[in-house]
């Protein structure tokens, strides 16, 4: 059988796979980007808020975040996987600017930049020290998800309730726990928990619990609000590279 005949046989499988990849990335993105809003290995679970109390809390959170025009925050992401001896620790920085600009950058232990700007999405990594734009798959889905992330940046979780059961606990801080409703997503994620500072209503830690022993914890620090963030940070072709990740 010639190569062309071989290709004809294989391609339909990949076409199906590409569609499934798109669906899968939709779920992964929801998981991944919740972490932007927040930031710790399960904080002690306090008293669960009633439905009315929960609604009131989310309303207060949205109110508190209303004055935030822009944000710059550092993060440390620890990936704990029982098969591996030590966690993989990555460091990065996140930028957000109203109404629709978001940048999630990892500069250690690898380098990648994801940018959402006015409903367009771009992802970059570095090849031999030079910025490389990825020919990103699943862009349409990413766009929709990132749009929803922007809502979360504003403390708006209304649409999330279609995908997650939301539980809120109160002790010293608040813990907003999102439990997937779909069995498919539950196979990958048991729950996502955002630890929210009781005073500022800002997320300090995100815990993405995959299994009893495997989890990702993202701790946020050094948050600066309402800075003048350069437009070039959100450039979809050649974004400005911030300190800690090399030069432009």
């Amino acid at each position, binding site marked *: 059988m*010639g*190569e*062309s*005949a*071989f*290709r004809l046989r*294989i*391609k339909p*499988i*990949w076409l*199906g*796979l*590409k569609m*499934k*990849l798109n*669906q*899968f*990335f939709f*779920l*992964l993105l929801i*998981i*991944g*980007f919740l*972490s932007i809003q927040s930031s710790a290995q399960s904080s002690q679970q306090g008293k669960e808020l009633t439905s009315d109390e929960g609604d009131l809390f989310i309303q207060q959170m949205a109110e508190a975040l209303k004055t935030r025009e822009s944000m710059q925050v550092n993060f440390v992401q620890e*990936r704990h*996987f*029982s*098969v*591996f*001896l*030590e966690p*993989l620790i990555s460091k990065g920085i996140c930028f957000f600017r109203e109404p629709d600009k978001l940048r*999630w950058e990892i500069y250690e*232990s*690898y380098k*990648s930049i994801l940018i959402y700007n006015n409903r367009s999405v771009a*992802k970059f*990594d570095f090849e031999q020290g030079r910025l490389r734009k*990825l*020919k*990103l*798959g*699943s862009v349409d889905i990413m766009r929709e998800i990132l749009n929803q992330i922007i809502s979360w940046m504003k403390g708006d979780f209304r649409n999330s309730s279609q995908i997650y059961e939301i539980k809120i606990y109160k002790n010293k801080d608040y813990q907003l726990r999102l439990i997937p409703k779909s069995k*498919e997503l539950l*196979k*990958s*994620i048991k729950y996502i928990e955002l630890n929210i500072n009781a005073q500022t209503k800002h997320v300090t830690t995100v815990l*993405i619990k*995959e299994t009893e*022993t495997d989890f*990702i914890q993202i701790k946020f620090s050094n948050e600066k609000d309402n800075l003048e963030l350069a437009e070039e940070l959100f450039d979809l072709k050649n974004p400005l590279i911030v300190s800690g990740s090399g030069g432009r």
Partner: protein
Amino acid sequence: MTNKLVVIIFLTTLLINFTSCSFNQYILPQPASLQAEKHTYIHALQNTYPKEFTAIQRIVLQIRNKQYDFLGYLAMSRNNAFRATVFSDMGGKFIDLYYNGEKLELIHKPTGIPDKPISNGVTYDIKHLFEFIAGNNTYLVRNEKKEISVVIIISDNKFEEYIFQDNKKEMASSRSVHNGRIIREAWYQNYANFEGFDYPVPQKIFIKNYQWHYELEIELLKIVPEVKTHNAFPTE
């Protein structure tokens, strides 16, 4: 009669041309008289990685001109068993597979994604890149560029070839050949020293799988020469 012969010759020529355009037959290279170097190169190949290790890699998968990035965890054990788990860049398990040296167990994959590209593609990519079982059917070859390669014959119609950089005991590229067809090729770059390792390890690997039409770029982020055997290989 003459006309018939002309037509047959024409059609045969056409068929040969078509076949050779479809794919180039890759012939099993003939052994070179390199008995003195044989041990050195086979030793270098088998010591590319320690007998057991665990690695974390950043992986960019390219399918049909689209790219998807992942984090991969790989645990290799002494008895040729391995566990490979792939996560999205920011969380969420994509693929989890366990190979016990003989049989594959696909622990997790997204519903609807076919098994074959994983069981026949990715699994054998891992074996090709990280598992080098040299035996009696292993010999050295010197190509026209004077590069030395180690050829491991797997069966009558299958072999693996690992090509070394000239005068260096580091792999530069490799390929798997089945029935005269190259089904995967890999390139190894950026050899670097890692703590606990006796030799430099390739930090970047590119692999093209011609059988399943995808490419992987694998960047090594972390590697340790030990495995949490109980966790990685639950059935052992």
